[in-house]
C-alpha cells in the first residue's frame, strides 16, 4: 500500500518536474522561438479555413496544434502550453509503457520521451501539431488497450478494431499512428495474437502509401506528417537572432543594439538588426564602424534560392523602414509564402501596412479581412481599417506616406542601390534612406559612388551650420585624397572639420610608416572608415 502510494507520488512529482522544467526552459531560455512560431502561422476562425485541414492526414493534430500555437502570442502562453503538452507526453508515455514494463523503467522512459519531444520543439519551424500527433498516437493506443482489456474478447472483432483504429490514428494524428502501431504491435505479440501483429505491421507500412496520392504528399512526408524532424537540439544562436527580430518589431531599438553587441555573434543577421536599430535611433553612421560589417550584407539581404528562411522573414523590415514599399512588399510576400504553412500573421500584417501606406486600401483590406478572423489580431485590424483608423495609426502611416516614390525606374531584386537612390530622388530629406545608401556605398568600398550620392542627395539638403557625420567626412577625404582635391577650398566646401583632417594626416603618416601593416593603426583608427577601406577583406562565399 505504502509502496503504491510512493510510486504514485513519484509519478506525479516527476510530472511536476517535467511541467516546471519545461516551463522554465521555454519561458526563460527559449521564449523568442515560441513567439516566432506564432508569427509564422495563422489560425482563422472560418469554416473554409478549418476545412483545409482535411486536405492532409493528421487533421485533428494540426487543427489542435495550430489552435494552441496562436496563444504563443501572449507572454508566457507558449511556455505554458508547451509545458502542459510535455507533461501530457510524459504521463501518457509512462501509462502506455507501464503496461509492458516495470513502473520505474516506465517512469524513466516516459521522462525520456518527454525530453526527446522537448528537444524536437527546439527546432525553429517545429509545429505544435507534431507534439499533438505524438500525444494522439499514444492516446489512441491507450484507448485501444482499455477496450481490448474489457470488451474486445472476440478475436475477429479485435482484428477489425485494429484495422479501423490504426486507420483512424493516421487520419487523425498522421505519424502518431506509428507510435500507436508500435505499441499495438507489442500488445499483440505479448498476447501471441500473430494475425493482428502482421496486420499492424502491414497497415502501418501501407496506409501512408495508399493515401499519399490523395493527400498529395511525398513518400517521406506521408510517413512523417506533420512532423518535420525527428531530432533537434537547442539553438541559442538562433534564439538570439529571433530575440533581435522580436525586440526590433516592438520598437526596443536600444535593447536591440545592446543585445547585438552582447551576442558575441558575427553574422549578417546580427549586423542587419544592429544597423537597422541604429538607423532608427539616428546613429547609424556613428556606430557603423564599431561593429562587425560583412560588406553590405549586414545592411540589406540579397534574396536568392539559397537564402535561409529566417533571412527572408527578416528582410522586409529594412525596406519598410526606409520607405521602399515595392521591395518591402516583395520581401513580405516571400516571407509569407515560405512560412511553414504559407501563412504568417506577421507577414500579413506587414502586407496590410504596406498597402495602407501606398494608398491601396482594397489590397490592404484583403489582408485586414483575413486578420480580422483571428483571435489575436482583430483589435489590431480595427485600429487600421481604412477610413476608420485611430489617430496614432493614421499619423504613423501618414508620416511614411510622405516618402512615397514619385519617380519610376526599373531595377533587379539585387540592385539595392538603385532602389535607395529612387527613394532619394523623390525625397532627398529621407534621412534613413540617405544613411542606408551612403553606408551601402561605403561598405562596398565604392567611394566614387558614395561621392556621387553624397553630392546628389546630402549636400543640397544640408542646413547652414550642419557638420557632416565623421564617417562621411572620413569617406569624403578618401575620395578627395584619391582625386587629389584636398585644397582648403574643397575641404571647406565639404565641411571637413580640422579634427578629422588632422586625424587623416596622422592616419596617412602611420599607414605609410607601417607599409600596409595595420597593427600600428588598430588601436587609434580601428573603428575609422579609413581602416575599413584599407584592411577589410571581401571574402566571396
Amino acid at each position, binding site marked *: 500500500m505504502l509502496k503504491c502510494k510512493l510510486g504514485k507520488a513519484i509519478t506525479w512529482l516527476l510530472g511536476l518536474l517535467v511541467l516546471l522544467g519545461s516551463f522554465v526552459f521555454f519561458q526563460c531560455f527559449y521564449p523568442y522561438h515560441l513567439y516566432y512560431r506564432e508569427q509564422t502561422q495563422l489560425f482563422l476562425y472560418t469554416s473554409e479555413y478549418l476545412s483545409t485541414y482535411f486536405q492532409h492526414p493528421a487533421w485533428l493534430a494540426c487543427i489542435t496544434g495550430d489552435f494552441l500555437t496562436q496563444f504563443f502570442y501572449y507572454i508566457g502562453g507558449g511556455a505554458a502550453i508547451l509545458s502542459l503538452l510535455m507533461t501530457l507526453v510524459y504521463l501518457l508515455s509512462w501509462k502506455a509503457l507501464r503496461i509492458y514494463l516495470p513502473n520505474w523503467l516506465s517512469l524513466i522512459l516516459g521522462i525520456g520521451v518527454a525530453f526527446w519531444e522537448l528537444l524536437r520543439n527546439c527546432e525553429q519551424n517545429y509545429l505544435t501539431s507534431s507534439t499533438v500527433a505524438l500525444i494522439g498516437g499514444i492516446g489512441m493506443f491507450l484507448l485501444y488497450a482499455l477496450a481490448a482489456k474489457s470488451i474486445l474478447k472476440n478475436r475477429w472483432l479485435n482484428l477489425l478494431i485494429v484495422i479501423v483504429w490504426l486507420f483512424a490514428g493516421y487520419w487523425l494524428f498522421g505519424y502518431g499512428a506509428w507510435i500507436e502501431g508500435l505499441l499495438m504491435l507489442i500488445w499483440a505479440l505479448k498476447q501471441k495474437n500473430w494475425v493482428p501483429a502482421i496486420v499492424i505491421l502491414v497497415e502501418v507500412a501501407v496506409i501512408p502509401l495508399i493515401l499519399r496520392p490523395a493527400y498529395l504528399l511525398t513518400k517521406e512526408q506521408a510517413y512523417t506528417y506533420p512532423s518535420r524532424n525527428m531530432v533537434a537540439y537547442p539553438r541559442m544562436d538562433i534564439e538570439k537572432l529571433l530575440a533581435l527580430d522580436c525586440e526590433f518589431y516592438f520598437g526596443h531599438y536600444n535593447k536591440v543594439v545592446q543585445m547585438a553587441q552582447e551576442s558575441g555573434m558575427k553574422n549578417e543577421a546580427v549586423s542587419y538588426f544592429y544597423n537597422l536599430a541604429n538607423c532608427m535611433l539616428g546613429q547609424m553612421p556613428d556606430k557603423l564602424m564599431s561593429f562587425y560589417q560583412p560588406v553590405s550584407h549586414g545592411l540589406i539581404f540579397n534574396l536568392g534560392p539559397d537564402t535561409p528562411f529566417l533571412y527572408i522573414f527578416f528582410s522586409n523590415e529594412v525596406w519598410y523602414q526606409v520607405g521602399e514599399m515595392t521591395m518591402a512588399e516583395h520581401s513580405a*510576400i516571400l516571407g*509569407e509564402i515560405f512560412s511553414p504553412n504559407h501563412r504568417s500573421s506577421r507577414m500579413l500584417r506587414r502586407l496590410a501596412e504596406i498597402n495602407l501606406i501606398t494608398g491601396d486600401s*482594397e489590397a490592404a483590406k*484583403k489582408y485586414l*479581412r483575413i486578420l480580422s478572423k483571428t483571435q489575436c489580431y482583430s483589435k489590431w485590424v480595427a485600429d487600421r481599417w481604412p477610413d476608420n483608423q485611430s489617430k496614432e495609426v493614421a499619423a504613423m502611416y501618414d508620416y511614411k506616406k510622405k516618402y512615397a*516614390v514619385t519617380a519610376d525606374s*526599373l*531595377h*533587379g531584386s539585387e540592385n539595392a542601390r538603385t532602389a535607395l537612390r529612387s527613394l532619394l530622388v523623390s525625397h532627398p530629406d529621407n534621412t534613413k534612406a540617405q544613411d542606408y545608401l551612403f553606408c551601402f556605398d561605403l561598405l562596398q568600398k565604392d567611394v566614387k559612388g558614395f561621392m556621387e550620392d553624397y553630392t546628389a542627395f546630402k549636400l543640397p539638403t544640408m542646413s547652414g551650420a550642419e557638420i557632416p557625420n565623421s564617417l562621411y567626412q572620413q569617406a569624403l577625404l578618401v575620395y578627395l585624397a584619391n582625386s587629389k582635391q584636398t585644397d582648403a577650398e574643397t575641404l571647406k566646401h565639404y565641411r571637413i572639420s580640422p579634427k578629422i583632417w588632422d586625424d587623416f594626416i596622422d592616419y596617412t603618416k602611420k599607414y605609410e610608416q607601417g607599409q600596409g601593416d595595420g597593427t600600428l593603426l588598430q588601436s587609434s583608427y580601428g573603428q575609422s572608415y579609413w581602416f575599413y577601406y584599407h584592411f577589410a577583406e571581401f571574402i566571396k562565399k
Partner: protein
Amino acid sequence: MKSVFYIIIFCCSLLTACSPKPSNVRSVAQAAPIYPDYADVAIPYNIAPLNFLLRDGADAVEVKITGKKQTLTVYGDDKVCFSMDDWKELLDAEKGNILTVQVTSRVNGEWLAYKPFTWYVAPDPVDGYLTYRLIEPGYEVWNSIQLCERNVQTFDERVLIDNNTVDKSCMNCHTHSSQRGDLSFFHLRGKKGGTILNRDGKLRKLSLKVDGMISGCVYGEIHPGGRYGVFSTNIIIPSFHTQESKRLEVYDTASDVVLADFDQDRMIVSPLLNDSTVFETFPVFSADGKYVYYCSAPRVKLPNDIKNMKYSICRISFDAKKGELGNSVDTLWNARLTGKSACHLKASPDGKYLLYTVADYGTFPIWHHEADLQLMDLRTGKVDNLKIVNSNRSDTYHSWSSNSRWFVFASKRGDGQYGKPYFCYIDRTGKTYKPFVLPQKDPAHYDLTLKSYNIPDLSKSPVTFGPKDIENVYENQNAEKFH
C-alpha cells in the same frame, strides 16, 4: 418510410422557423453591398450557384429571386448560399430570361430592402471545366503551386498536379487545345521536367529545345489537329518598379516563335519568326488552324526603353498538311498607330474574334493596372474596347468557351494582387455583358485565399490525367528529344 419523411419535414420546418423573416422593412435607394459583385451580370444556365455575402454588417438576410416562371427565396446570416437543386431548377426554367434579385438584410436590428438587381440567364452554356494554376503572387519566386480543374457547374475542384510531389518544381499553366480535355499541355520545369503533352489520353514528356533556339518553349498552343504546337522562346527578365503601384515588370531581352511537330519530334523554324531585330511572342493558332497569330515588337534597349516596347498583332499562314509556315506576315493591329502594346492572343473557336490584352507598354501585363482586354472582329477588323468587361486593374489571360459565347479571364480587380477568374458573355450580335467571378461554395473564399488564379482555361470535358500520372511521368519517363 413515412415517419422518416415527417421527421425531415419537421426538421426543415424547424430550420425555416429559425431564419428571421423581414418585418417593418425600410427601402433604401442604394445597391445591395454584396460580395462578389454579382449585380446585373449575365450568367450561363449551367453555372454553379452564385453564393454571395453582404458587407453591410447584416446578421440576417432574405434574398428573393423572381423570374418569369419561378421564384426562389433564400435566407441566411450574412452569407447567402443556394441549394444546388433549387438553383439548377431555377436556371433551367429561366433560360434566356432576366431574374430580379431583391436583397433584404437586417442591419443593427433594422430590415433594409436594397435596390433590386438582375441576372440575365443566357441561353448559351459555358464549357463545364476550368483549369487554372493556383500560386501565391510571389513575383518571380514560387513555393507551392497546384494546377487544378474546377467543374464550373458545381463546386467540385480537383488537383491535376501539386508541385510538392515533383520536387517543388515550377509549373507553367495548363493550356487546352480546342477546349478538349484530352488535348492539352503544360511545361513542368525542374531536373526531370519537360513539356507534358496530353494527347488522346496519352502523356508524353518532351524536350522542346534544339540548337539555335534561345530558350526552351514558353507560351504556346497546340494546333486543332493535335500534331503541331506553336511556341515562343523567350529570355525573360523580371525587374522591380520603384513606384509601388506598378510592382513588377517582366520583359524579354530576346524572343522568337517556333513550331513543334509532335509526330516527328522536330522543331520547325521560320526566318520570318526568328528575326533577331524583332521580338516575337505569344503565338496561337486560328480556329481553323490555317494561321498563326503572334505578337511582334521591334527590339529596343532594355530596360531603359521599356516604355517604347510595344507589340503589334501579326499573322502568318500555316499549312498543316505540309507543316510549313507562309512567307509573308500581315499586321492586324499596329502598335505604332495605337500607341499601345498587345499580348495574350486567343482566337474564338467560331473564327470570328480575336481576344487579346492591351497595355501601355511591355509584354507582361499582370501588374499593369491599365491592362485591358480588347476584342477584334476578324471579319471587319473592328476593335471593341470591352468597357463593360474591363476594370481599373489588370484584366488578362483569357480563354474561350467552345461555343464562342463565353470567355473567361483572370482579373485582379478589387485587391489588385490576386487574380480571379471572371466569365463574360458575348451574344450572337457580339454584344458583351458585365462579367462575374467564378462562384465559390463559401462566398468568403476570395476574401480569405492567398492564392492567385493564373491563366484560367476552359474545356468541354475533364482533363484525362491526375497527379499520380504526372508524378509517374516526371519520375519515370525520359524527355523525348526533338531535333
